[in-house]
């Protein structure tokens, strides 16, 4: 328990839309050093990027259900787009459809962030708080990767394949 308290206390705070204060690898290395194997494995299995259905218990179970619903919303929005009809999402607002792809993605990430924040309430110094931190760190990193110059290069590398993408 004290290790968990120490680890959580030592983590820098995360802010939506701001630069990530540490990498995912740095976070995992720190967690590996501080946590028991069992706890570390539990932490490792949670990822929004590599999300698997049905992960978690309690508050985390609720979150995985929300992510399942989000995926269902995305399926519905894709189907509606193909069939040229208005979509009927469960969680996402209909106004999202009107947004451009970046605004829409940010709105979805904001929704995930808010859901994660609500899970943190009353879960101070618990595994739930640590898992939420990891998931939020993933989100912060994802937002930070959205870059106009690099995005244009990605488009160019597909449209003009002879032009190599600079990493």
């Amino acid at each position: 328990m004290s290790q968990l308290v120490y680890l959580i206390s030592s983590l820098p705070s995360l802010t939506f839309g701001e630069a990530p204060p540490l990498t995912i690898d740095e976070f995992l290395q720190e967690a590996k050093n501080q946590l028991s194997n069992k706890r570390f494995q539990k932490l490792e299995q949670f990822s929004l990027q590599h999300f698997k259905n049905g992960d978690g218990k309690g508050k985390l179970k609720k979150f995985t259900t929300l992510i399942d619903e989000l995926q269902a919303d995305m399926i519905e929005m894709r189907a509606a787009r193909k069939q040229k009809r208005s979509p009927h999402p469960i969680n996402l607002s209909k106004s999202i459809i009107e947004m451009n792809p970046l605004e829409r993605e940010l709105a979805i990430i904001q929704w995930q962030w808010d859901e994660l924040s609500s899970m943190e309430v009353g879960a101070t110094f618990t595994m739930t708080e640590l898992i939420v931190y990891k998931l939020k760190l993933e989100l912060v990193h994802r937002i930070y990767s959205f870059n106009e110059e690099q995005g244009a290069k990605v488009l160019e590398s597909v449209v003009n394949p002879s032009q190599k993408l600079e990493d």
Partner: protein
Amino acid sequence: MPEMKIKYTKTERARQKKILKVSQRMLPLFEAMEKSLMVTINSIAEQIEKIQEAIERNNEKAKPWISVLNDEWVDVKDLISVNEIITHPVDIAGVRVHQFEKVDFNVELIGDELPLWVDDAIELMQEQLKLKAEIKCLEDQIALLEEELLEVRARVKLFENRRIPNAKIAIRKISQKLQDDERLTIATAKVVKNKTE
């Protein structure tokens, strides 16, 4: 230019007159062909310009959201590529060229787990690739038409600078020589006649 050898005969004069007549009839045809090729090339160049503008417009339209393409969770580059540019042969200004029809894309199935922006990105990439393929076809057309234009210009020059002037010179020289010969024959005949009297 080397001095041309001329046979001073009536048959040769008739042959040169025929060459002149045919050349004078062909020259306007080649000039018209040259003009038509130039107009066609300019019109294709304008088409290319319009397509470039459409590409620019699409890029401008996508600019507000282009940053999402660098999403570290998705590698969109592997999701789409061009399989084949489909064209059909047509004759433009008498030249056989390939007209753009459509692009056959290799598009990977977009998994449900992939973010929604991927659909928009694929749509944008398909449109830009299609427009680029159209430009490529039109550039190939211009290359073929320019090749033909060079040949036609060479023919126009050949008729203008060689065939027509040469035929005119040959006709003039032959006529002059034949006239001189005729005068000489008449004069000789007169002298012979006077002597015999």
